[in-house]
């Protein structure tokens, strides 16, 4: 059970050790983070590449659920835990030289720990705690640069995050009131009490609450400011990784508890609004980080719409979109490291750094869903699913997705044409390709996935099969409760 517990505990420990160590030896302090993350990766990677037949279940401190906290590592959770370790390594600040280096490393490790916990935990309140921890870490990271806009953005982020947390807590409290338990599997055994209006309200509150991090409308107004003023690597991690983990919580609830109710409608409705507001705002964006921040809002709207589809189709579509966005958006923010000025100032950048411009075109094509890139397959999964739903709201969603994708294509390629314009004084841009190495690696990964789309699809289907199976989750956590289930699988 080490793969479950160490990736959470070690970074947490390291986070608190970095600051004192920094006083003694800067080198050790700098090396601690990567070492810890690499250890996590080494532990988790085998579980992902060669998944065990049964998911890993660990009762923390040997306290049995539902009283104790359980860590549930099915293929989906392990995938995301791996992603945390991998992406944190990818976007680690290798160059250093920051005056607040130790603090930054500590906060990063804290974020990594809480992110892994978000992926693995099986208890609702535990998830809330990790969520808050992640929020606090991200406040620190975003405001670390100390510039005026960054601080203002952080304050707004803080306010909305606090408000969201209050709402989420209210939702959890309501849920506890109805059922008397906070263990996800326990909730799944008997979802009866939550099928009524009270349960739906609780879900709605939690959607809005956790939706802050997941950039859901109407709580995503912090996104453009924060992503534009934070360092690009932090934005990459927040937009790419953390947002997905917030959605993961809602997914678990949806699968285990709210599958047969009208709860997905909330997701669909808010998802449509999110995608609409996100992409249309991107149309008017004047600088690169803001443009991809808005695009990120839009894509997360798509994730929500995908998860609102019924059955395992919805889970598959949602996971596919989420993973695709994780790859592409992180890579785009990796490019934003140097392309942080206004869009006008970037005219002609392709002359000096053709590779970066080509990468942008590749990611843009995948974002808008051009076959044979993976983005297309994810999109068509969502669209086919919406068409099959057949409800009026589903068709509205279908139309909205198509409309905003057209808008997205236009503004992305308006920028791409600007990049390739022939000008006399091309802007300096990237000094060497090491500066956008993460984006390069992620671009290569995208191409690899394109070529091996079928094996990847098969894996995703296997992951979905596990994740969408409610009774499987329950029987894994409560082997003895299998005989005493009151509900139908």
């Amino acid at each position: 059970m080490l793969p479950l517990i160490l990736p959470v505990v070690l970074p947490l420990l390291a986070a608190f050790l970095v600051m004192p160590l920094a006083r003694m030896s800067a080198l050790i302090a700098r090396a601690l983070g990567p070492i810890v993350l690499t250890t996590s990766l080494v532990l988790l990677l085998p579980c992902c590449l060669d998944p065990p037949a049964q998911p890993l279940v660990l009762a923390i401190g040997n306290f049995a659920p539902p009283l104790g906290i359980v860590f549930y590592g099915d293929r989906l959770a392990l995938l995301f835990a791996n992603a945390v370790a991998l992406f944190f390594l990818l976007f680690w600040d290798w160059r250093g030289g920051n005056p607040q280096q130790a603090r930054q490393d500590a906060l990063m490790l804290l974020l990594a720990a809480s992110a892994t916990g978000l992926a693995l935990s099986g208890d609702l309140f535990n998830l809330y705690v990790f969520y808050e921890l992640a929020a606090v870490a991200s406040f620190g990271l975003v405001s670390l640069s100390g510039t005026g806009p960054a601080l203002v953005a952080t304050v707004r982020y803080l306010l909305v995050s606090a408000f969201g947390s209050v709402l989420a807590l209210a939702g959890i409290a309501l849920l506890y009131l109805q059922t008397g338990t906070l263990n996800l599997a326990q909730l799944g055994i008997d979802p009866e009490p939550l099928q009524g209006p009270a349960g739906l309200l609780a879900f709605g509150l939690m959607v809005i609450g956790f939706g802050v991090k997941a950039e859901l409308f109407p709580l995503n107004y912090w996104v453009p400011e924060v992503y534009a003023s934070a360092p690009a690597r932090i934005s990459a991690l927040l937009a790419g990784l953390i947002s997905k983990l917030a959605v993961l919580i809602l997914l678990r609830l949806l699968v285990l508890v709210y599958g047969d109710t009208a709860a997905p409608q909330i997701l669909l409705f808010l998802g449509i609004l999110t995608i609409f507001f996100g992409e249309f705002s991107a149309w008017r964006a004047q600088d690169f980080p803001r443009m991809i921040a808005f695009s990120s809002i839009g894509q997360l709207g798509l994730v929500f719409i995908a998860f609102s589809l019924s059955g395992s189709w919805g889970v598959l579509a949602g996971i596919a979109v989420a993973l695709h966005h994780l790859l592409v958006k992180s890579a785009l923010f990796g490019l934003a490291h140097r392309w942080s000025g206004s869009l006008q100032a970037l005219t002609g950048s392709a002359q000096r750094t053709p590779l970066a411009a080509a990468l942008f075109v590749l990611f843009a094509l995948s974002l808008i869903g051009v076959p044979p890139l993976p983005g297309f397959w994810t999109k068509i999964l969502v669209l086919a699913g919406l068409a099959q739903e057949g409800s009026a709201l589903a068709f509205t969603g279908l139309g909205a997705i198509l409309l905003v994708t057209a808008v997205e294509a236009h503004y992305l390629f308006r920028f791409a044409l600007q990049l390739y314009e022939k000008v006399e004084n091309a802007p300096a841009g990237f000094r060497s390709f090491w500066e956008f190495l993460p984006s390069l690696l992620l671009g290569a990964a995208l191409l690899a996935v394109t070529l091996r789309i079928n094996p990847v699809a098969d894996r995703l289907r296997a992951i979905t099969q596990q994740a969408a199976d409610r009774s499987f989750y329950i029987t894994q956590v409560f082997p003895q409760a299998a005989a005493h289930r009151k509900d139908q699988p």
Partner: protein
Amino acid sequence: MNALDLLFLLSGATLLCALLFGRTRWAAPLLLLGYAAQFVALLQTNALFGEPISLSWSLVVLDQPMHWRYDALSWFFALITLGAGFLSTGYGSGVWMRDYERAGHSAGVLHTALAANVFSMVLLVGAEDFLSLFLGWELLNWATFFLMALRGGIAARAALRYLGYAFTGGMAILGAMALLYAQAGSLEFQPIRESLPQMSDGQLWVLLALLGSGFGIKMGLLPFHLWQAPAYAETPGPGSAFFSAVSARMGLYAMLVFFVGMVGLARLVQMEIPYTFLNGRDLLAWIAVFTIIFPTYTALQQQDARYLLAWHGIGQGGYMVLGVLVGTAEGSAGGLLHIFNHAITQVALLMAVFAVLYRTGTTDLNRLGGLVARMPLTFLTLLFGIISLAGLPPMAGFVSKLLVYRALLFEGMPLLFVGAIIGTLGTILSVYKLIHNIFLGQLRLEHESVQEAPLSMLIPMLSLSLLIFLAGYFPGPTLSWVAAVQAQLGLPVVNYHLGGVYDAHGGFNMIWIVSVLLAGFGIGALVFFGLGGPSKRVHQLDNYAGGHFLYAENRYQYSDHFYAGLMHLIGPWYRGSFQWLERALGSIVDFLAHFTNGFYGIAQPLLWSLAAVLGIAVWVF
């Protein structure tokens, strides 16, 4: 490995060659070889008269198979594609490319873009299910965008406008695919074809709107035509010639596959529009007729030769759609034949215009004139081209248009018939202006030393001129291709022979008509040269000028506002409605963007969050 595999492989290999060797001296010969090899492979597939041939390799993603197959329709379009690619590359090799590179552009990029277009078209016309169709469609859209945008500046802006249209069309197609999947459970053609009869009229209307828009945007049908003329006109020479030949017709290919092959014209006729006496087919036919008329009269007013021809390209597409929609043997034969005839005509015309551009540096119709004395062979090409475009005997364009007219006549569709004729008359006016302003009239002082077009340009131009004439003289071979396509699509097959068509209502025989015409010319020449005395060549300034003395610096040429009288009448009718519509849509998007952006700038957004929570509470209880 069968012939189709070979074709696809060669196509990809040509693209690779263009990518790797595009900058070198051997690029053009290598690519010409590549296209010729693809052509040979296409002939070997024998898909036109033989059995359809499937690709050995197919792809299955997410349980959806993607396979490719060539049948008669695919063969027909692939032929035009490869021919256009070959001739355009030949035209753009040698002197033109040296000039292009000296102007600071990259030959390799142009060659790659052209090869990419050919490759994606070869893929597209072989699609055997909607996924592979969409794959080919999107690849083609992006390859087209690439070729349009590579010159930068005004071409890039036109390309971005094209992208807006094309991508919206692609999304409409994707939406229709999602709906079809939900209905039929599969994206393959056969299951969809079987589930179509069960669909209600309402569902079919939605599909018609979505797919019609998507395919119509590519085709340049009204009201989606505004992007086409600037985009095609501003593309560099060979690219423009290639586009005008076949690029827009890919939309027609898709329409033929879906609306004729799968839905069927009979079903379209059954779909009535309430409160009118129109049905689905009538609606499309009227759109086609308006597509013929409006762009043709827009072409009439153009000052730039390339734009004039680009607008005609849009208009002629209407004839193809109209002919196919009439549905009879002759009508659909005319429509399908026009695809080929127009392709060779338009390429010849654009090549001639770009040759003029190459030699004189301008295509502005108000700054040319009298070039027939310096570029007689280019003039000949343009002459053959405009006679064919106007649909006059003895050229190819006459045959296909005649078939369409006869079909409209015998089906009793007078208004459509008149619309088509008005389009032809407008074409005659417009192409006369083209040839007059460039080649006839007064030769300008600065063009005194202009030379004939170089050989690398003349060879494709003259061979196309010959082809235009032969296709008009002996329409039999091209009609045989068309008959094979008709048989494959399930349309009635035209009863053709070497010179034309048999028909109970009175067929026609081009061999007789053209031979008599040539004999008539012979007699006219006899009378003129034989009867009269020898003619004395006079200088162009030795001309009636009402008593004034003409100097070489005088511009004694009527070119501006060529149809002033007509424009007095119809000028005010052009209210720019379509541009208004386009701008209105752009404004709506802008407004929505402002609105959504406003949300991200408000000072106290927490109220919204509270409102959202309250909304959920209300909805729940």
